[in-house]
């Protein structure tokens, strides 16, 4: 059994640099937000915890959504995914977080079919 030392060194170096580079931070969904409401804050906290059950937070951060209502439909579809674990009352809060992140207060105002 021979060990290719190059490959081992590369992998260990990558792990070490990743470990040393790890920093704690807040909720990435809140980055760039100005004065979010309590509901938005709560929704973002729920999204951070529940959405990562199936995918990384990066999916949310990278999403390019056309309209506020798209987020509403999208989150509803995700809540119906098997084992999603998102409660009914949590769905509109997550939507508010994501709409505010994408469209600000104007987006919240145009949300259809749910209370602001």
């Amino acid at each position: 059994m021979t060990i290719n030392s190059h490959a081992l060194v590369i992998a260990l170096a990558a792990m070490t640099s990743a470990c040393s580079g790890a920093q704690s931070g807040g909720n990435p969904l809140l980055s760039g937000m100005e004065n979010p409401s309590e509901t938005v804050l709560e929704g973002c906290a729920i999204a951070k915890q529940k959405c990562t059950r199936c995918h990384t937070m990066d999916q949310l951060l990278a999403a390019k959504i056309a309209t506020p209502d798209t987020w509403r439909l999208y989150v509803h579809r995700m809540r119906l995914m098997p084992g999603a674990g998102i409660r009914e009352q949590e769905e509109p809060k997550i939507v508010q977080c994501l709409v505010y992140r994408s469209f600000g207060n104007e987006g919240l105002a145009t949300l259809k079919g749910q209370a602001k």
Partner: protein
Amino acid sequence: MRVVLILISLLGLLGSAEAEERDRNFAGSVQLDYLAVPTEDVGRDRGLDGATVELSLKLAIDFNDQVSSNVKVCVACHGLEVGMAFFDLRSSDLLNFRVGRFTPQFGSFPLRHDPANHRTSDKPLPYDMGRMLRTDEWNMSILPTPWVDNGVEVSGTKFTGDSTRFDYALYAIGGPKASSGADDFDFIQSRSRDRYYVDNNSRPSIGAKLGTSFDLTDDLSMAFGLSGMAGHYDPDNDLSYQILGADLQLRFKRIYWRSEYIVRRTEMALGEDPSTRFKYGPGADGEFDPYFIKDGFYTELEVPLTDDFDVIGRWDGMRRLGNVVANSPLRSESAVLRYTAAVAYRLSMGLRIKSSIEFYDFSDFEDETALHLALAGPF
């Protein structure tokens, strides 16, 4: 050329989406992974080592609350594949019809199969699709993921109480394929355009999944599921298979513990002279057993140390019980266990570096070590 045309079509749809302000979402992900086998001078003898790219481009359209559609194309080791092309017709939370090309509901991991969704470079052994070492000798895994097929799926969710829900799914799909007289699935044939994307035996495979999830506290939740699939895989409709699975997931805050078990019972063609076709002779009753069992498991712990840094530990394995063809390097009882330690670090805006070390413990071959280094992210 075909790839270019499809990309142009997708971008065209994206462009019109912006113009019409329709409820459309375009998303994608890329992973570049390098697999090294430091215990071998030439890793290719043990598996598909080296660099692989997995690209997915997905367009989701919500026409309204009841109708949505998803189209996803992927480019990976197999070249261009259509991973999704289906409509969802939802009359209520309890009743949804999915029609088209999709991954039927089975187990838990297939939901997270996209490399941008799971923290390790590769998949658990029972769901591996060619990245495990000794993949040829083992004829890959039990249910390579994503298992994409044509068919129809009826599914739904019943919410009870504050946090408890029950999910179900029933489906009929083309099913796995192989040639007449086969001794196992032929995974290449199952996805090959040369055989067309149609059922090979005029009999759909059927399957179902039942699941439940509930919150024990605000921070602690649990999900559990049972899955099954059955049918015939040869053109003559003679060779049967059944797959059963159980999955369990516990979440404490953002720490996840996931476990699954899958077992497949597969019928082999005995042929005209089984004594020369197979490695082992008949049983005590003088008859050759035409079935083999392939089962496997994984259990993994995913711990986010910070928002950017995840640590993952996984233990998985596979076993094959039953007769084997005469030239197989496996025995009547073969097993592989694998131990994985992995980290994933978010660099910026979704770009994530993943690295893992895997120790393979084979019952029939020398033990091996594998290293993964990957860059992955959604866009």
